[in-house]
């Protein structure tokens, strides 16, 4: 009898339906798996055989053929262990076929028949829903993740025999549902907060503006001035994630097998800070069967690139498409995949190779040409996509010993949320969500200036030598500043502030 159990294979971000068929014929004992399986599936033979024997079922001494359909799709990973085991039990009449085909079955088996967690369960749950399945059979550890989708029956089992017992009616595993943790204020002692940062009010303000309008930001300053501290705390002032955003980010982490074990849903915006030795594939995603890279792992969060000019040029330039479109397309000979990557870029760098150009205390030892060379590592197209560029100077002695503490993150976040709300209403129904994504037409429409501001801008264009693009950038940033002040029109003070955030502009002299 040909047994059939439905399972699925991950393919980029999405899961594809795979039918696992098994049949037995008389002959010398043999176990063959066909249907483009990878090494992990070939090895499933041993795991399946021993878990069937160790769960005290009979492993049929016949010629077993397992087929994974559709035959042209490459399948990989250990998630097929459980469906293969069930299909063999069905074909050897130790389990009835009835009822199982209403479920999508996934799970890795250990030699004693226990189920182990697998990656990408959220995508699989989405597939189950789309394919009209009644539910999903998953290892216990993945149950929360599977239940996030709602409307699906989630059967969480810890071993092969539990699944069999459930379908034979000996025990009934009840439907697992996800209980959202009660809203709690983070009281972690290590919890980051802007409260910890002394001084640097100018930089903190710039970060606030950047977050309010979704602008990318570049911080330039000598070593030890607090660039990293500032960057690491950005997630604490980002607006709270919506459920949809949480699901999107969780899906990426699930596919990358990086989901923290205790909470299934990622509710805090991620911050990723890859080292500058990262490869192109590590940053944008890749591999033979492409996996999401750092830019996708920072989807709906922050990508922090410290020592920005040290990143290889090729790696830096691949950021262009994701910065523009919020997604990244990876093309390989075998496939083309798209991963979401809508992140806020936060870059930090020293002003020159030695790090002390413009410092109050130490003299810079770089030659003019070396400064030039260092700065030119960041190309125009990348700089164009960074709306806010600020200097973060070394702290003065007074700042260091001052008892004064900064403003807590929560207060800043409240202001940011207000500014974001204004923007949501402004772009209601449009494709964009934040000021940073406006195109020139939208800038014209939404950035109306007061009469004085117009005069101010006129003279600024001359004095600062603003290019067309520089002009757009100043307007976008001043729009965000005005939103923070809840002002409908952009005024001189907003424009003047925006003009300060362009210290690294190509038109600026060293």
């Amino acid at each position, binding site marked *: 009898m040909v047994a059939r159990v439905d399972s699925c294979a991950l393919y980029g971000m999405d899961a594809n339906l795979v039918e696992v068929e098994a049949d037995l014929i*008389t002959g010398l004992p*043999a176990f063959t798996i066909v249907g483009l399986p990878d090494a992990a599936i070939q090895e499933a033979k041993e795991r399946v055989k021993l878990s069937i024997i160790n769960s005290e079922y009979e492993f049929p001494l016949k010629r077993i053929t397992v087929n994974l359909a559709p035959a042209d799709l490459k399948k990989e990973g250990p998630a097929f262990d459980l469906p293969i085991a069930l299909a063999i039990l069905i074909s050897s009449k130790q389990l009835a076929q009835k009822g199982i085909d209403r479920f999508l079955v996934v799970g890795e088996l250990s030699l004693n028949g226990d189920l182990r967690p697998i990656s990408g369960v959220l995508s699989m749950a989405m597939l189950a829903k789309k394919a009209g399945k009644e539910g999903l059979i998953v290892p216990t550890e993945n149950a929360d993740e599977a239940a996030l989708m709602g409307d699906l029956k989630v059967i969480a089992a810890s071993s092969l025999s539990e699944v069999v017992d459930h379908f034979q009616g000996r025990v009934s595993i009840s439907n697992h549902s996800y209980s959202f943790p009660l809203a709690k204020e983070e009281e972690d002692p290590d919890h980051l907060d802007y409260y910890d940062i002394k001084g640097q009010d100018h930089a903190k303000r710039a970060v606030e503006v950047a977050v309010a309008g979704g602008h990318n930001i570049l911080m330039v300053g000598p070593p030890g001035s607090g660039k990293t501290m500032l960057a690491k705390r950005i997630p604490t002032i980002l607006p709270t994630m919506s459920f949809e955003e949480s699901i999107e980010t969780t899906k990426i982490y699930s596919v990358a097998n990086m989901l923290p074990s205790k909470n299934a849903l990622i509710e805090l915006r991620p911050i990723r800070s890859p080292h500058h030795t990262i490869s192109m594939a590590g940053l944008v995603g890749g591999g033979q069967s492409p996996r999401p890279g750092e830019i996708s792992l920072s989807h709906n969060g922050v990508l922090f690139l410290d020592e920005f000019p040290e990143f290889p040029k090729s790696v830096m330039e691949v950021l262009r498409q994701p910065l523009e479109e919020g997604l990244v397309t990876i093309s390989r000979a075998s496939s083309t995949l798209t991963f979401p990557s809508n992140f806020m870029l936060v870059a930090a760098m020293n002003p020159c190779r030695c790090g002390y150009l413009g410092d109050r205390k130490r003299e810079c030892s770089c030659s003019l040409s070396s400064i030039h060379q260092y700065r030119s590592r960041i190309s125009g197209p990348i700089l164009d996509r960074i709306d806010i560029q600020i200097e973060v100077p070394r702290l003065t002695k007074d700042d260091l010993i001052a008892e004064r503490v900064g403003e807590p993150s929560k207060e800043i976040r409240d202001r940011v949320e207000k500014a974001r709300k204004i923007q949501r209403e402004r772009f209601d129904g449009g494709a964009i969500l934040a000021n940073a994504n406006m195109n020139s037409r939208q800038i014209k429409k939404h950035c109306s200036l007061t009469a004085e501001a117009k005069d101010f801008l006129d003279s600024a264009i001359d004095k600062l030598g603003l290019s067309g693009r520089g002009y757009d950038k100043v307007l976008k940033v001043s729009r965000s500043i005005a939103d923070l002040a809840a002002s409908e029109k952009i005024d001189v003070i907003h424009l003047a502030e925006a003009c300060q955030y362009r210290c690294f502009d190509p038109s600026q002299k060293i």
Partner: protein
Amino acid sequence: MKGLGAAGEDMAVKLLSSKGFEIIERNFSLRMGEIDIVAKDGLDLVFIEVKTRASKEFGEPFEAVSLLKQKKIYRMAEAYLAKNPFDGRAIRFDVVSILLGPERTDIEHIKNAF
């Protein structure tokens, strides 16, 4: 003393004859190996490997017909056919698995085993 293997082969011949097989040759051997039984089952030519075990401690007797062994029998069959051309319907490989224990004897005939 006659070995376990030979005793098993005698049992296999008896079983096959009772099933109407016409035994053509026993222990067809060349330098590279041996085929236990060559027989005719109706229009088919059948090469039969007999595996005899005294206990199940190391698995069923037929589990011992490894892939390597199968390949060997396959090559032997080719050598046999080179010497004795066959124009019947099909060529088949069977296994007779015999458990010759102190208390009980199991005999199993697997048709078309590989």
